[in-house]
């Protein structure tokens, strides 16, 4: 009896594990699609194999910095009301994990229907996305509705990999309370913009008299710091080869190192892993070189001091670094047409305006250039002005295929070594030049 019971328990355990480890129902496969995400998508206008009455489920991988999740959910609710047979599930994933999550899903044969992307994520995943040109009759007409300067972020090797939902601009968020306390007035108009030297002088005064520990925090040595690079006249890439190792770049690198050596920017943010957002939110820092995506976060979380947005300083140029988020659809999901339909809806004028106003984002649509924001209207004018004065090199670099994948880690590590004093700015520039050559091979 005991033997039978023991054997029964063992086999039950094995059975339970087998059932528990088995995959769920396989997604419905579109006609002619073998489920392999990297192979060519079905012909334009192909419909899903789902019956008209059947509920179509679109899983959308999503990351967020602030209030945009709620805003997107409202867009989804509106879409579902118009299309009762479609259900869109928002699946939140940390930003740092998005590319891996997409990759694992594609490799595992269960790609998501949709995902929110940035130019960096698309740079890694564009092989797996749909070419929207194959699903939309007048793709040129659709693309013409969006800012031309950011087309290269989502049109990669002539493939329309996604459509943009918002455009981001790097910019300077500052601690108004600290500036007022120190008696320093920020530039009120683009005509008053400081040079970087003037800006550093102002920061030193705020640091001394404004009740803050540090002058500035910069999110990271790659995308965020590249704003300074462009302002000093440097760039990563040229038409025919790398263009990082230049006098302008070395000037930007040297200037940046001085900011850390003078403790205007805390080394602990880049070297010690301290979160620049947390440091600014806690009132320890005078300015945060960040971008417009932090607006809702700071609006909701900063209660101890007043903050605002001011114009970034200039060196040789004024510039920001444009970025943005897009919605991409993936091959092999079985609901390709439905996914493309949702993207077209979410990026249409009315839906996009609603999304951007609620999320406090800049719209990438030319016909949504002036939106009626409920908060921080004047800040958006500053960000829009920064974008207007952005050098073309910025979007050329960040929209170059595979740039983020090849450059980000060596750029970050090289900057850390430079700040720590282990290599010189000249050495870092030379090292990066070699790394970037791979993009042209």
């Amino acid at each position: 009896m005991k033997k039978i019971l023991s054997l029964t328990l063992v086999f039950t355990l094995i059975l339970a594990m087998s059932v528990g480890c088995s995959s769920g129902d396989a997604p419905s496969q579109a006609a002619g699609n073998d489920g392999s995400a990297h192979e060519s998508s079905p012909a334009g206008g192909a419909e899903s194999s789902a019956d008209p009455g059947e509920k179509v489920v679109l899983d959308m991988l999503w990351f967020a910095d602030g209030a945009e999740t709620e805003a997107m959910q409202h867009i989804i609710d509106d879409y579902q009301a118009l299309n009762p047979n479609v259900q869109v599930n928002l699946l939140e994933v940390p930003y740092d994990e998005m590319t891996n999550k997409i990759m694992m899903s594609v490799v595992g044969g269960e790609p998501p229907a949709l995902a929110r992307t940035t130019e960096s994520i698309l740079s890694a995943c564009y092989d797996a996305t749909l070419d929207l040109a194959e699903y939309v009759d007048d793709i040129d007409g659709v693309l013409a509705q969006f800012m031309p300067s950011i087309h290269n972020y989502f049109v990669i090797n002539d493939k329309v990999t996604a459509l943009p939902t918002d455009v981001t601009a790097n910019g300077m968020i500052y601690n108004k309370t600290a500036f007022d306390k120190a008696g320093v007035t920020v530039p009120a108009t683009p005509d008053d913009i400081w040079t970087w030297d003037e800006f550093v002088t102002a920061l030193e005064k705020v640091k001394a008299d404004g009740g803050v520990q540090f002058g500035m925090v910069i999110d990271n040595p790659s995308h965020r710091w590249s704003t300074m690079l462009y302002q000093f006249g440097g760039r990563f890439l040229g038409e025919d080869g790398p263009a990082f190792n230049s006098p302008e770049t070395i000037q930007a690198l040297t200037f940046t190192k001085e900011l850390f050596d003078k403790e205007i920017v805390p080394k602990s943010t880049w070297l010690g892993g301290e979160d620049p957002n947390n440091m600014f939110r806690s009132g320890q820092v005078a300015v945060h070189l960040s971008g417009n995506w932090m607006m809702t976060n700071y609006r909701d979380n900063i209660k101890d001091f007043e903050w605002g947005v001011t114009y970034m300083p200039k060196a040789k140029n004024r510039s920001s670094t444009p970025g943005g988020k897009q919605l991409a659809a993936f091959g092999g999901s079985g609901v390709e047409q439905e996914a493309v339909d949702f993207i077209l809806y979410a990026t249409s004028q009315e839906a996009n305006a609603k999304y951007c106003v609620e999320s406090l984002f800049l719209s990438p649509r030319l016909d949504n250039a002036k939106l009626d924001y409920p908060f921080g209207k004047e800040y958006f004018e500053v960000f829009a002005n920064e974008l207007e004065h952005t050098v073309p090199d910025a979007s050329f670099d960040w929209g170059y295929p595979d740039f983020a994948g090849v450059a980000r880690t060596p750029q970050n590590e090289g900057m850390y070594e430079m700040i720590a004093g282990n290599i010189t700015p000249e050495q870092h520039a030379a090292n990066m030049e070699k790394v970037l050559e791979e993009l042209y091979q």
Partner: protein
Amino acid sequence: MKKIKKKQGVTSLEMKLFPYLLILPNLFIFATFIAVPALFGAYFSLNKWSGMSAPVFIGLDNYVRAFHDVKFWQSFGRTLVYVLISLPFIMGIPLFLANLMIKEIRAKGMFRAIFYWPSMISYIIVGISFKFMFGDNTGIINYLLSLMGKAKVEWLTQGSTAMFVVILATIWARTGFYMVTYISGLQSIPLSYYEAAEVDGANPVQRFFKITLPLLKPTTFLVLILSFIDLFKAYGLVLALTKGGPGTSTKFVVQYIYEAAFDGKREMGYASALSMILLVVMATFTLLQFKVNKGGEIQ
């Protein structure tokens, strides 16, 4: 008259089969989550593969590249330093605590629980907690130092102090687990040996070195192997605490392999080759330890 059913004995075949049935679930899990992925890893190490497109067979090119990869061997060297410094503490401190915990002291159970508790916490949480304590500008320790009028220490901004904090966090997180292992080893040593030694006039230090340590050899060997492998695979704690920084000062080999696979250029094939090299190196070290320690046998 009732017939009394004769109780049948266990057959020889059942005796042989039953142990295998008992380990079958674990074998199934091991095969599914360790052995099969390892075989796939070996296959992908011979390919160029981004994870998105189809693998392309390139033979041993990934291995040739790995042997010339200076950064990989630098991360390997850093890992070795971390292991060699941490290992004596991870073996010595639990042994010391275990010796205390087998004595008859009040609230022995409570103390055992307190020392064991950190090993139940996820490595990520340990890393975040230590970051909360040792953060340069947002950490509690520097805040307390500032209250005492002392200068703050750049715990996570300097390479050497960052390595110190990582080692400290590791020791704190693993001591309890190995303490319990040692306790079970100590409890298996017959008390009669100690009694006889006491009668012969041996002092506690002599009893420890002449009786405890030699008879604890199998347990010590087990702790050595487990902790060596555990330390070499360090990733979660380091990622949460320093992200391999400052710069690359605490970037160990598993993080390097992870970044080769999932960051930057996404070279899954190359990362698989690096994993295979790590596997061979660790297997070699383990075998050497087996030979030197004669499998933990007491002599």
